[in-house]
């Protein structure tokens, strides 16, 4: 009897320690990644990187100014397209009763959420690049907005649902119309979570390269507007990393550092906005 107990107790100790080890391992990978980026990227972050255009192969001193601006442009337009759609769709799912339609939309939104970004890129290509006979920033933005919409929809719906029903009933009892209730009472009440969802969604799409590969392509100059191919950070990182030039590798690290800094800042500030931890949304 005693032997069995000793065995069970040692199994207990070993397994529990192992789970702790796994956790430490996983968290340390994060710090390893950040450390690596910092170490390699910081050295290459200089004034040139932020202000100069990319130079041709072998020439030193180029930068990624156009990629930084290009990314802001493309992500900005994607946000303009995707945030309102996701937001209002989320309102519909939460506030207006329509069981079958709503579950269909929810299901489809979740599916779109898990869609490989390259497939979304194919959609944007077939709809916009082929028909407009050219690569453009707007095609890239469309692809990114398709990825943004499901994220924002689900987040909006989730946080609106958490707003207590009493708030709605109170407003309605005072004679407010339904849409006024939503606009002035419910949405503000859930605004923290909704904003979090938007920030996280934008952070997610700003790092995507695959959907931009054959939509907004790339550009060695400042893009000539939204109908022209435009440089973006993730695409530049991809091409620079694959090359053989050390100078370009350095730039890839630096750009990676900039990108990860933006993504991390967005994620951390989103959590602060929410002021309580939320899990990775189920989707």
């Amino acid at each position: 009897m005693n032997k069995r107990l000793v065995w069970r107790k040692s199994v207990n100790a070993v397994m529990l320690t192992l789970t702790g080890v796994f956790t430490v391992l996983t968290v340390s990978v994060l710090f390893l990644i950040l450390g690596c980026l910092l170490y390699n990227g910081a050295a290459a972050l200089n004034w040139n990187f932020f202000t100069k255009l990319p130079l041709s192969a072998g020439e030193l001193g180029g930068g990624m100014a156009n990629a930084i601006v290009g990314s802001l442009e493309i992500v900005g337009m994607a946000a303009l397209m995707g945030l309102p759609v996701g937001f209002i769709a989320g309102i519909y799912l939460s506030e207006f009763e329509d069981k079958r339609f709503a579950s269909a939309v929810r299901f489809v939104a979740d599916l779109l959420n898990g869609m490989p970004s390259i497939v979304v890129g194919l959609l944007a290509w077939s709809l916009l690049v082929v028909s407009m006979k050219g690569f453009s920033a707007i095609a890239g933005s469309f692809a990114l907005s398709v990825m943004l919409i499901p994220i924002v929809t689900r987040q909006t719906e989730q946080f609106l649902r958490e707003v207590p029903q009493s708030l709605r009933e109170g407003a309605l009892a005072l004679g407010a119309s339904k849409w006024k209730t939503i606009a002035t009472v419910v949405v503000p009440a859930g605004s923290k979570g909704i904003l979090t969802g938007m920030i996280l969604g934008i952070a997610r799409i700003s790092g995507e390269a695959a959907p931009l590969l054959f939509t907004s392509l790339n550009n060695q100059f400042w893009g000539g507007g939204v109908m022209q191919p435009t440089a973006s950070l993730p695409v530049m990182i991809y091409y620079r990393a694959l090359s053989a030039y050390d100078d370009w590798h350095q730039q890839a690290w630096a750009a990676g550092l900039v990108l990860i800094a933006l993504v991390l800042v967005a994620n951390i500030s989103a959590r602060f906005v929410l002021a309580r931890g939320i899990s990775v949304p189920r989707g």
Partner: protein
Amino acid sequence: MKKSLWALAAMLFAGASAATAQNVNGAGATFPAPIYQKWFGEYHTAHPAIAINYQSLGSGAGIAQLTAATVDFGASDMPMTDDQISKLPMKAFHFPTVLGAVVPTYNVPGVTQPLKFSPETLSGIFLGSITKWNDPKLMKDNAGVKLPNADIVVVHRSDGSGTTFVWTDYLSKISPAWKSKVGANTSVSWPVGLGGKGNEGVAGLVKQTPNSIGYVELIYAANNKMSYGSVKNAAGTFVAADTASVSEAATGAAKSMPADFRVSITNAPGKGAYPISSFTWLLVPSKFADANKGKAIKGFIQWMLADGQKEAAAMYYAPLPKEVVALELKQLALIQ
């Protein structure tokens, strides 16, 4: 916060749109990409209103995008086949721009002298029949060099490549086995090896992988301080690629250039000719719907055929023979 975001957005859009008046987009070969990017950059500095954006996606992409009319011009190291030309929605001209060389670049730790490759060894390595660096055939050509007993890692292109076409065109000419088993094209079914994207990707892989061998345009090997070997030409001499040996390979073709400029100069005769040389072409539509674009491209090609050629040698390419330039200027006049 929202107001300043809008202001920033407006500024960016205004800035981005006002930056250039005339945008021309092209895509294609990675083979001449270094000099193209330099040329387009210089041309933009000299003519700030014109920005010719060139993306080096590979010759296959150049032809595909021109066929889909998603770019204004293409670029390829493989002259378009009759079949490809028939699929184009417009009539297009081939404009040779420079001469270049495809070199066997390798990364063998411990080997510092340049290696010599014969047609047998090159085709054997890429067919997969020669698998180790200290194979007797390689040792025979490289007496005095200590080759390690290591597996050869072959690197080829994963994308549709004119450079691949030049390489496989050469291999098909010197190896009947290669010709029947694999053939020559921008994309082939490789018997062995890893795939890298673009000349850049192949160079990157070879540089990072010990005991590897790949094929790249000369400038990619030279710029990255990578070793590249000399190749035995049709006359039996081991020739290293440089401006002179590449120019010599083109002398025959220069005299008998066909009207559409589609020609292959691999395995050219001549004692000092580098056997894996090639022209590379810009694929330019004969008519432009947007007259400004046509003017911009015509202006560029004119500049390229005169001033641009002067920069070729410094970047490890060879300038076009004078006879070819004269013929091209005639073709240039046909673009509307």
